């Protein structure tokens, strides 16, 4: 690709405020911690997601091919959320090419097109919406400038359509215009098209990766190959808190197919000619572990308890503490959620080839830059000498924010001087996951004489989520204390209540906990929205109206009300049991996307059966309605799976179970036969989509079960007494 001539004429692409400014704000105001903490907490919940990667040059984002197509190199990875399709629509519209003319590929780290954050947190489209359109529009103008020169006409006289530039009576393709250009001029960012003039944005295009995924094309990290590739296996701990001390490898050394045993200060691995030979040799290695304590489930449960650990008030309005003194009017409820596994189908692993002065690593990762930097550090190479080639992810969900597997494959490759592919087994996946932490919630409230909430308080005790990952600056942790992932969805969203507060109790667990699709949203919404249902029953009110009556009159409140009304209308909401089925209602707001759901439930053979879910969500401008609906459908069933079935436990130091089946998950037979999604668009730009629809489902189901049986289920996974 050609290099750019100069940057002087270049106006910086617009950088929006929001989370990116947090670090600065946090440092500057360290002394006023408590107030500032709450302000930041509020900002984290409402800030627009910034894009933190390089937007200086369109040339690292786009490549024009000889057949007059454009390749968009995406710094965001495709893990099923459909981001490649959405980005293709956005870029094609400003590039003035057809959808058939755009292809999307992962940007390798060596291209310099790197995201400083991650693919996660439902931020990919919302953060790239502005910069990608600007980059595409700029690229279009750059091609036009070259065309003008080649055609000998002025840029102003040119028109473009479908990658063909017309000027006077002449036409030239993008490919022709771009041929032999050595020094590109990068102009000021042009004015973007009016949203109403977009051809592709807002339309339900099919996925750009659909056919590859239907015909079995090798796409994933585990499918990657290189010539002369060998296979690695690493001995991983099976017990919580185990630290590697040493290993007896004498038996493994002589096993068939073994090329080399690799002993490091922190792990031992083996390289062999085949995957099975590597696995067999690995299983013959005897490791000495330091195991300070043998943990049990009850130890963990005893730690996760409101009142233990350190409390941080993350939201406060009025005088909730004073009003929620214990007396006969005080209503108190408790809820719990278990440890959750990611259980994504493609295990973690990597294919690495380390040569003397460079390394190439093909893998599924949500944090391309962090993965690169960690591998470079371990190999003592410059960061630019390590090229991460991201592959499609066989599921992300937050599981690929931690990538020590990349380091391990690289270390094994360096030891043998050949490419080495090294993956975790399913058992290793389950035991070395970075889990969704268990939670305990205590909610308190008092109703006033009109049956409305006078004061409410949500306490959540949780293991770390955001601080469990390497993605956020540690200064934030120092300032915030409370874990912004653990409290996601944990604030009171009913702003017309005069007195409310939310308190996050932070607990450090002895095993890794981190981001799991929607972070704390599922558990926090389960607790708060079950409690709201309880309060509505106590107040003798309809749960939908009860919610609507306590939402403030501002834009955020308006959007929340609208999804609540839309979900209720579409579902034909009733508080009555009809033909053995009851409805349950719940709503949440996450990354500025409000979402309301109605679950229609019956009890079949003493089991909770979800027949239909109606979902109304307002993610702002919708780039691809079909894929937003797909995210809702998947999130609803995944959330249902976590709410009804999933639970990890600890037995004699081991996280269990270690296989699908015993780790019970929703299957085809559990999935609702009807999912009805209504999309509202009450914001001008796209907001988050991947996680918000996971919020309400647990509470919606539990609230329906209460209507049917009178049982208030307070613990996930939800089981009837």
């Amino acid at each position: 690709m050609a290099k750019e001539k100069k940057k002087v004429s270049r106006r910086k692409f617009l950088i929006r405020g929001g989370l990116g400014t947090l670090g600065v704000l946090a440092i500057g105001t360290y002394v006023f911690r408590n107030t500032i903490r709450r302000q930041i907490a509020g900002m984290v919940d409402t800030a627009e997601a910034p894009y933190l990667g390089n937007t200086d040059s369109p040339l690292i984002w786009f490549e024009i091919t000889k057949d007059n197509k454009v390749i968009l190199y995406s710094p965001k990875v495709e893990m099923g959320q459909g981001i490649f399709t959405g980005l293709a629509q956005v870029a094609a519209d400003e590039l003035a090419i057809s959808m058939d003319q755009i292809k999307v590929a992962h940007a390798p780290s060596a291209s310099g097109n790197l995201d400083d954050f991650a693919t996660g947190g439902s931020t990919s489209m919302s953060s790239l919406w502005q910069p990608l359109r600007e980059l595409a529009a700029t690229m279009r103008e750059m091609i036009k400038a070259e065309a003008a020169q080649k055609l000998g006409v002025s840029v102003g006289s040119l028109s473009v359509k479908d990658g063909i530039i017309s000027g006077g009576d002449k036409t030239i393709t993008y490919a022709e215009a771009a041929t032999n250009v050595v020094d590109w001029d990068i102009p000021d960012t042009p004015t973007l098209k009016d949203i109403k003039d977009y051809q592709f944005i807002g339309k339900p295009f099919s996925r750009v990766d659909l056919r590859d995924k239907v015909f079995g094309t090798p796409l994933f990290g585990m499918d990657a190959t290189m010539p002369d590739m060998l296979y690695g296996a690493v001995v991983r701990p099976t017990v919580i808190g185990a630290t590697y001390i040493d290993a007896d490898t004498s038996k493994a050394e002589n096993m068939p197919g073994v090329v080399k045993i690799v002993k490091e200060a922190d792990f031992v691995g083996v390289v062999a000619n085949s995957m099975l030979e590597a696995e067999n040799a690995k299983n013959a290695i005897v490791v000495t572990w330091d195991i300070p304590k043998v943990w049990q489930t009850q130890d963990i449960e005893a730690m996760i308890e409101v009142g233990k650990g350190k409390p941080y008030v993350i939201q406060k309005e009025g005088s909730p503490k004073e009003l929620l003194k214990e007396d006969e009017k005080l209503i108190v409820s408790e809820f719990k959620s278990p440890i959750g596994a990611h259980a994504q189908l493609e295990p973690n692993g990597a294919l690495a080839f380390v040569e003397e002065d460079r390394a190439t690593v093909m893998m599924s990762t949500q944090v391309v830059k962090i993965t690169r930097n960690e591998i470079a550090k371990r190999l003592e190479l410059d960061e630019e000498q390590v090229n991460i080639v991201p592959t499609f992810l066989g599921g992300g969900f937050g599981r690929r924010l931690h990538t020590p597997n990349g380091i391990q494959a690289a270390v094994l490759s360096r030891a043998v001087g050949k490419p080495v592919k090294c993956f975790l087994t399913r058992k290793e996946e389950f035991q070395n996951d970075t889990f969704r932490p268990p939670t305990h919630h205590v909610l308190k409230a008092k109703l006033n004489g009109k049956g409305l909430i006078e004061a409410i308080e949500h306490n959540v005790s949780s293991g770390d989520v955001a601080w469990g990952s390497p993605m956020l600056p540690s200064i934030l942790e120092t300032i915030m204390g409370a874990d912004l992932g653990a409290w996601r969805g944990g604030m009171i969203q009913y702003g017309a209540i005069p007195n409310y507060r939310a308190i996050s109790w932070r607990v450090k667990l002895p095993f890794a906990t981190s981001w799991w699709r929607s972070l704390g949203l599922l558990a926090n919404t389960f607790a708060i929205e079950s409690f709201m249902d309880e309060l509505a029953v106590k107040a003798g009110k309809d749960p939908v109206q009860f919610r609507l009556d306590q939402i403030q009159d501002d834009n955020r409140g308006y959007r929340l009300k609208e999804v609540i009304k839309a979900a209720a209308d579409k579902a034909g909401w009733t508080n009555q049991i009809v033909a053995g089925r009851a409805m349950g209602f719940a709503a949440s707001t996450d990354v500025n996307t409000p979402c309301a759901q109605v679950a229609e439930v019956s009890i079949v053979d003493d089991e909770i059966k979800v027949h239909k879910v109606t979902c109304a969500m307002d993610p702002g401008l919708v780039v691809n309605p079909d894929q937003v609906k797909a995210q809702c459908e998947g999130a609803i069933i995944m959330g249902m799976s976590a709410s009804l079935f999933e639970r990890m436990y600890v037995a004699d130091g081991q996280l269990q179970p270690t296989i699908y089946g015993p780790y019970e998950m929703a299957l085809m037979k559990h999935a609702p036969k009807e999912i009805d999604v209504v999309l509202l668009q009450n914001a001008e730009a796209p907001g988050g989509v991947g996680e918000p629809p996971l919020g309400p489902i647990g509470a919606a189901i539990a609230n329906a079960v209460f209507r049917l049986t009178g049982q208030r289920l307070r613990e996930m996974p939800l089981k009837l007494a």
Partner: protein
Amino acid sequence: MKISFSVNEVPHSIEIKDENTPLLWVIRDMLHLKGTKYGCGKAACGACTLHVDGEAVRSCSYAVKFAEGKKIRTIEGLGTKENPHPVQQAWIEEIVPQCGYCQPGFMMATAALIDKIPEPTDDDIDRNIINVCRCATYYRMRKAIHRAAQIQRTTSKTME
């Protein structure tokens, strides 16, 4: 030892040290067909589902020695982009995949199902399609299975 079988109608004769090697790894690492996936290694998730003599088999737990003389079909042999199998056609029309990793296993299981039960009911689907999809694409998958069955019935009628 030497084991002979066909994969997607191409005959193969492979030399293998351990006859108990799961068929999955022979298909993936020796024959380089990567569409059949590893998910769990214990026949618990179905990501590795392929056909052996027309039967859906979880190849991670199927020793290669049992494949002797058999006809194996993988996702790569189900249909082509030019001429998709009814299951693939239905999957495209319903836009089923998200991450896509488990989808070949589901499609192979579905192809075997509609060969046996040309007009499966929801109960038939619930009983027979028991693979795991973490993106939880089950809602569209059910629609696609019904559609695939319909396409296959229409196609076979036309051919009669």
